[in-house]
């Protein structure tokens, strides 16, 4: 079953197929793969904060204060 919405649904068959594929390729335990996926998700906020701090250090932004 999938919750109907616009895009982003992951069919249960597809989920099983991707899991098997990842397990075959990586050969890691469940916690390790979960940590790896978590790290991928973390990329966006980490890059955002790093870029903001970098720009701020160069003097491109003043301090936060809206």
């Amino acid at each position: 079953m999938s919750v109907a919405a616009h895009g982003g649904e992951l069919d249960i068959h597809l989920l099983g197929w991707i899991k098997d594929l990842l397990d075959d390729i990586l050969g890691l335990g469940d916690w390790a793969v979960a940590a790896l996926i978590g790290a991928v998700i973390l990329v966006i906020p980490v890059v955002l904060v790093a870029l903001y701090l970098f720009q701020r250090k160069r003097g491109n932004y003043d301090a936060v204060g809206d």
Partner: protein
Amino acid sequence: MKQADTGKHPLYYGWYIVFTCMFIVLLTNGVRNSFTVFIIPMETDFGWSRGTTSVAASVALLVSAVIQPFAGRIFDSLGGRKVLLSSMVVLGLATVLLSFTFNFIFLVLVFGVVFGIAMSGVSLSNTMALLSRWFRRNRGTATGINATGLAAGGLLMVLLAAYLMQATNWRTTWAILGMLILGLGVPIAYLFLRNDPSQMGLLPDGDIDTPDERSEGTPERLVGPLEADRWSQAFRSWPIWQLSISYFVCGFTTSIISIHFVPFAIGEGISPGLAATIFGFMMLLNIVGSFGAGFVSDRFGGTKNWLALVYLCRGGAYVLLLVVPGSLGLWMFAAVAGLSWVATNPLTTSLTADVYGLRALGTIGGISIFFHSMGGFISVNMAGFLYDATGSYTIPFAIAGALLFPAALSAFTIRERKYSTRYVGGSAPMGASGD
């Protein structure tokens, strides 16, 4: 926060808003779609039937759709920052609360009602409305990037939930997902989200307000002939009906495939593994289609033409699905339909903002999403009913395909050149809208 006049060219702050919104969409829609992973473990623990868990999912979907216009109204009154932040806090708390589920009523109340209401606050229509304030020329690109969060979240968060479930149990998994929203999503949203570029002394797209432009009137101050202060004004004109009716068809034709594509493929004699691969291929193309549609509409103009083309292509994809037999038909469908899947989102939002302005965009966008959700709700149930009655998906898929051609016509006949501020102010991109 202000962009200092240092002579350097810093990244326009609006792009931080884009990726923050994309991250919010990724997290929140990802957690919602993760419900799929919880169904079997929760059913096993409580002895529920599939129909029981489906009720909670359906209630969440319906509540979110019905509340959407009201969430949009609050967005228009309070601004995006407050609405998105408070919705994320509620969403995070509700997700953590789900780890304490002890009976069916609790699940329906927390996931169906509280989670559903909070989802309407962080919906795509609200993040898109926020981004429309930050971008004008690059509105399609910005909203397109935002929409890629849907597919990315649907993949990453659901996989994360699946692995956490294997490593722990469903209670711990709900708690971790909730903590991710509270511990990661909320701080990022708090840090970066701002309602409007003017709050930071900026103009949309990072434009510079030169003295010449000041005297001539900058495009940002242009008001289109259908600029709406209230949603009801918008619904007294044709374009919003044309957009909403085609968006209804969009919901109708995407949801039916989300639920019934793999069963259809297996029924055609395709192995579940191959059917899932084709479905995965289609999902990956969502990302390309979403970003690409926004980008080309910004670059070449004529948003309504691109929107019509997207519906036309999707209609063609349905024809291929029904006419070309075996896996070839499925691959062809996935290639064409995958590109058009989420592409309607940035195009519809961008065109709505261009025609009706920003003051009531949250409410108008919320009503459009309501049309979209209703299309999805009707199609999924209709397909299930017709499949039971006929033993085949031919009739529901034929109905879906046939609806896409009038939807394309509806989008194509929008008088964009007459109503869109991109054209009214003479600031349109190089292309023409063609009306």
